[in-house]
């Protein structure tokens, strides 16, 4: 491109439509003169963010541990052994798991082992937590990535389509559609898809249990309905944010100027408008990814998908505190990793910040 891009403030990014219960995204870098920023400043900011991430993880570990452990040791034991356990069994459980030690002693020893890679052996299942959780985590990650790879292009295309037709009936009807779908909980969407595609049409399996011993084709099919449910949960949010961001960028003076200079419309949309619109988009995607991880818990349980979400629900139901702690910490770590990556991407996409390092 002949003309150098001028760093023009794009104004306030549209507020991301944050789903309930999601942590707030890391704030987009505040607009400040590009020349002030240096490589050193950026390194410092990355280090600061990493530090904050570790601190957050630490807090998550304390909260999770407290939530599952600050109660009468006998209650913890009863939760694990069930109603019919005798007093002798309860006492033996308390002793075997050091539940009679002070909470902070148990916490430090658990965390120390955890960070060294020893996630412990569940006294409920008698098996190593790590070996139970990791294979399930793989399936959940695959499900999430497949959903994202479908949802992302779809919602950006949808957003772009709407942004270029703002105010028309097609924009309006799509907008209403996204609002309706965004309001539906995954549980409802999941059951609805199940009824339509598995029960009525019979195209897809009702549940995802084929992952346990199905053929490759059956296993692939087992991903479709859960992934589709997650896609339907994500697309309305991302599409609406894409619509807002692209619309704003299209209306911005630099876009108008580029058009007036006779640049092809395609170039202007993709290279000028989209690049600027990608900053709020990346944040929206990050929030949705975090949301996706919580949605996975619901979706996995609807479809009996043997992933980490199902494991979490089973562990809570079975009073398996050590597995609950491990899964909560793993999920927390993923939330934070996603936010970090999003922040780095924002820096990459933001022309002003990029110019500073050029």
């Amino acid at each position: 491109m002949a003309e150098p891009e001028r760093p023009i403030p794009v104004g306030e990014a549209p507020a991301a439509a944050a789903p309930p219960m999601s942590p707030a995204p890391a704030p987009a870098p505040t607009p400040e003169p590009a020349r002030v920023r240096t490589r050193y400043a950026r390194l410092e900011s990355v280090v600061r963010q990493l530090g904050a991430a570790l601190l957050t993880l630490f807090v998550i570990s304390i909260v999770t541990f407290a939530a599952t452990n600050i109660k009468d040791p006998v209650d913890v034991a009863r939760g694990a052994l069930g109603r019919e356990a005798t007093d002798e069994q309860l006492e033996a459980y308390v002793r075997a798991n050091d539940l009679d030690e002070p909470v902070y002693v148990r916490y430090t020893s658990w965390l120390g082992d955890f960070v060294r890679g020893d996630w412990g052996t569940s006294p409920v299942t008698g098996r190593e937590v790590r070996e139970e959780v990791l294979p399930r985590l793989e399936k959940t990650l695959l499900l999430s990535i497949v959903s994202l790879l479908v949802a992302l292009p779809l919602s950006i295309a949808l957003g772009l389509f709407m942004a270029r037709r703002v105010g028309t009936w097609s924009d309006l009807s799509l907008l209403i559609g996204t609002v309706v779908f965004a309001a539906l909980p995954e549980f409802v969407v999941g059951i609805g898809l199940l009824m339509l595609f598995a029960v009525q049409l019979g195209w897809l399996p009702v549940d995802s249990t084929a992952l346990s011993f199905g053929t490759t084709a059956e296993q692939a099919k087992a991903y479709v309905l859960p992934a589709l449910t997650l896609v339907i949960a994500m697309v309305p949010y991302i599409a609406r944010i894409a619509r807002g961001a692209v619309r704003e960028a299209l209306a911005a003076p630099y876009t108008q100027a580029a058009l007036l200079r006779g640049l092809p419309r395609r170039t202007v949309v993709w290279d000028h408008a989209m690049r600027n619109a990608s900053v709020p988009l990346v944040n929206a995607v990050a929030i949705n990814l975090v949301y996706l991880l919580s949605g996975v818990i619901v979706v996995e349980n609807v479809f009996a998908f043997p992933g980490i979400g199902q494991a979490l629900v089973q562990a809570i139901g079975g009073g398996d505190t050590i597995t609950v702690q491990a899964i909560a910490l793993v999920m927390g770590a993923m939330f934070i990793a996603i936010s970090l990556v999003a922040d780095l991407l924002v820096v990459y996409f933001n022309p002003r910040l990029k110019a500073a390092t050029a």
Partner: protein
Amino acid sequence: MSSEEFFDLITRRQLLKRGAGFAAGVSVVGLAAACGGDEEGAATGAEEQAEGEPRRGGILQISFSDSSTDESLDPAISELNNDSFYTGQIYEGLTVSNLEWEPQPVLAESWEPNEDATEWTFTLRQGVTFHDGTPLTSKDAAYSIGRLLDEELGSPLFSRLEPSLDPDGINTPDDGTLVLRLKRPDSLMPLALSARHAMIVKDGTSEFSVQTAIGTGPFKVKSFRPGQSWELERNDNYWEAGVPYLDGLRGVVIGEQSTKVQSVTAGQAHIADPIDYSAASTVQGSSAAELLEFKGSTYLLVAMDQTKEPFTDERVVDAIKMAVDRERVLQAVFQGYGDVSADVPVPPTDAFYPPDLDPAQDIEGARALLAEAGYPDGLDLELFTSASYGGMVDIAVAFQQVVEPAGIRVKINQWSPDTYWDQVWLVKPMYVSYYTRRHPNEILSVTYASNAPWNECKLKNQTLDDLLAEGLRTTDPEEQKTIYQDALREVADKHGTSIPAFVSKLWVKKTNVRGEELELSRGMLMRKAFLA
């Protein structure tokens, strides 16, 4: 009750009552087994005709929601629908009980007590081999029963066996004979050993992995992921010729109720473990699947501590029990899937149920009794409950409604499931509890006897204790029946438990599943099951 009447109760009546929605092809252990009298033979013959020739081959898949990640391949500690089921196909016991609590031979061909039922001699079946080819001997049986007496193992059968048997009372005079020398008379020992926990594992097995979980049953383990799935394959060397018919069984865990139901009506599964009563209509509306009602499976109760006011007055307890409209509770909470009970802890279909009790509601009688006890203006009570088990909250609400006309004002206190069994059960004066069906001796010993571990009413009733001891001394079935009916009558009359109904478990199966056998301890036996 004769076997034929019993057969009537569980299948023909269902057919009449609920139309074609119910299974015709279900058999019941002990009726299908060709070991009974003429009546049973007749029933079995009729059934086989209706089912047609068994078809060989195929893999049958079952969806379970009652499962947990702590389940194992060890039969001694199984407790949920899922582990009870798969261990029930992998292993076998010396005996298995039919629905009339009569032990039937499996790995033991016969058994004899001595005169006062303090010694039992079991003769093992010849020519039985484990899945790995080693022959079954009395050493395996001795080991399997002996390990149940180790409290550390935590088998639910420990508390049943321990009062009767010490480990050194287990003897093996030869490879085919097991002799149990007991600490007290126990005429019900062969029945106690029919429980799934007492199934025979290989001598010395203490870790139960896919490789070491070896039984004598019709199916052997192929894969096992706790809380997720399992696969069993046919045991080609099964001791009974010609069975099993199926190539294998598969179990998957589906926690979500509606998905579990749809997995049978529209999906890959052939059977689902018991569903919520509210989901029954979905199955009835399906052409591919049908309900399989297992009558008298569980009961919920309202327990009153008779050492605490106002339940120390027997008249108050009687008035409360009298004021319950049992039929309404059954309809409201369990949609009618069950039978009303006159506060008896065994179902009305049970051979030991005292036939002369009247379960009708009597509001006037209740008012009169309360007035006599010093509550002419009625009575305020607090009833604790929790969403810990299906129906517990609903039954509290239904109870509150039905006793209200008698001037009994019930305030419901819903407790957290996390701490309910520690802080409410056996602690508060009045609360909701539940049990699964057991033999009268067992349910009375664990929940009503003076020294019962879960004596919810805290009543010490010497008459009941004496009856229970007497029941264990006599080996005469008729005498036993009289004794346990008296004991159950004692409970219905004097103890502070309101048991409005015994409820069914609703299994779901595809219409082409045949030959499965309902069984009390294992849920279902599949050795004669096939896909038509």
